[in-house]
Each structure stands twice: as C-alpha cells, then as structure tokens.
C-alpha cells in the first residue's frame, strides 16, 4: 500500500510533520489550486504501515492519521502493475 495525502482535504497545518517518527512529511513548497501548501512526502514507502497494515490487520503507528485534523491521510492500494516500493528502516 502507499501513503497519500488527500489534497482536497489537507489544509496545510503541518501537524503530520510534528509527529512522524520517520520524518516522512517535509514542508511543502508549492501552493495547490486552492492556495494551500501541502506537505511533501520524503520516501513514503518507509512508513511501516505500507507493508505491515495488511499483514497485521491493523494500523501500525498511525500517528499522522490520528492527529491530522482534516482526515487527509490514508493508505491506498497500488494500482495493478504499479511498482511496489518496500523499504524497511530500523
């Protein structure tokens, strides 16, 4: 699975940056069409949830999703034939 920020919901508060132990969320640079600067993702495949969510049947860590006041963070299935990146960092 892959980590995504829903650009229709994110309001750019950067709280996700504050909590992620892997520092996956980086301050964004460009405004989107709504004038909001959405955080950038730095190698999001490092998030343990991408790989372990299915395996464990529950959300692992999930701090960013819980603190996101606008319900903008989720994990999507990769499309068919989309290369899956799996990186484990300890």
């Amino acid at each position, binding site marked *: 699975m892959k980590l995504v920020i829903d650009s*229709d*919901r994110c*309001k*750019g*508060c*950067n*709280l996700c*940056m*504050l*909590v992620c132990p892997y520092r996956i969320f980086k301050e964004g640079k460009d405004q989107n069409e709504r004038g909001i600067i959405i955080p950038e993702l730095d190698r999001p495949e490092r998030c343990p949830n991408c790989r372990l969510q299915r395996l464990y049947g529950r*959300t692992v860590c999930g*701090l960013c*999703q*819980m*603190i*996101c*006041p*606008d*319900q*903008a963070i*989720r994990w999507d299935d990769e499309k068919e034939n989309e290369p899956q990146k799996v990186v484990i960092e300890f």
Partner: protein
Amino acid sequence: MSFRDWYRIDRLPTIYCVGCGNGTVINCTLHAVDTLGWKWEETVFVSGIGCSSRAPGYIKTDSLHTTHGRALAFATGIKLARPDLHVVVFTGDGDLAAIGGNHFIHSCRRNVDMTVICMNNWIYGMTGGQGSPTTPRGAITTTTPYGSGEGVFDLSALAVVAGANHVARWTSYHVKELTRAIQTGLETPGFSLIEVLTQCPTAYGRRNKLRDVAETVEYLKDHAILLQKYNRLVQEGKPVPEDMFTVGEFIRRNRPAMGVPP
C-alpha cells in the same frame, strides 16, 4: 471497519480553521467508538453550540445539535427515554463550563451514564475570542484586552468533586493516550468527562503568541505533566515547574449511576 467510516465524507473538509485541534479530537473519539465495535444505530452524539459542538454534524450516526450549554440536559433526556443507546457529548469550555456550568455539575452529581468530551481551547472560538471560565490568567481575549485577571476553572477537578465516575485529561498531542482514555470513559457506567486541551490558532493563538499550530501543539506537549509524576514531586516536596497542567486519569470509581441499561 476504521474510524474513518464514521465520517460523513460529503461534509468534509470541516469548516474548522487550519490546524484547529477539534478534528483530532473527533478522530480519537471515533477511533475509540469503533474499537469498541459500537453500531451507528446504537450511538448518539449530542452537542451544544460552538466550533467544538459542530462535531456531531460530521458523523453518520443520529445526533442532536442543541442550544448553547444545554447539551447535557438533552443527553440526560435521551438516556432516560432510551437507556439502551450509547450517548456521547461533544462540548467546548464555554458551552460546558460557562453557560452550561449548572448542567455540568448536576449531571456529574446525578452520574448520568454518558461520556462527555470537552474540547477545552481556553476561549470562545466561534464568536471571535471572548474569554471563557478556563482562559488562563494573563491571556489576551476580546473581553480581556489587558490580560485576564480572573481565576480559572479546573474542569476535571470540578467533575471529580461533583461526583463523576471517570475523569481524565489529555491534549490534542497525546492522540494514543486520549483514544485510550475515551475508550475507558465509554466503557465506564456513569458520567465520564474527558477534558482535551486543544489549540485554537484563530481566536486564542493569534492573540497569545501561539499563532503557529505545530508550536502550539508542542507547547501543549511540553506543559503537560503526568499526574503520577506530579504527585511524586509533591510527595517528595520537590518544586513543581510553573505553568504546567496535569494529564492522566484523575478518577475511576463506581458511584451509583443513572441511565445505565438494565
């Protein structure tokens, strides 16, 4: 199921300001409710008036968005008519402690079986930043332009002495602890208050040097002291750092309750 399934997605994004802590508190509440496996049709969310009180409007279950300060009176009514329903109340510090103060202490006294989640942002957010009974001393609001000179209500302490069965306090930074506390509150028969200190960057932060959302949440984290640690410091006669507030579970007991399903 996940807590996200409880949201009315057609209503999102919320009307809340950028970085408003209320959204985080709704996430944690829905996560707790979802973990317990409650059904939509068995759960009712009730609220008064305020930014915090808009929360039930984003949730799929039946809900009551009532008059200012009266959420607990409506919730008591639901509990007496339909004790089989789970009743959860969202409220703000103004809604619960100012205009609703009497309903608050008497609901604790009666120990009505409900869980009350108070998003305490130290201010009246919705109406543009008037001081509330929890506004800290010295804080600038539109009604205290030279800094508040009044004492402050400790909502959790108030609920403990008024007779609530379960009382806990956390902040919008402590999402895991908060979720667990809400879950305990939902499971405890009788009145349960979960006080959550949240950021209101628009009405409070802007006037009180807490404009930056992440900095405010970090402020909440840094100024929270665990109840156990606080008690230990007091016991050992050591000084407790100033400006700190305690977080944790203040009480869990088994006083006779009203509205508990037979």
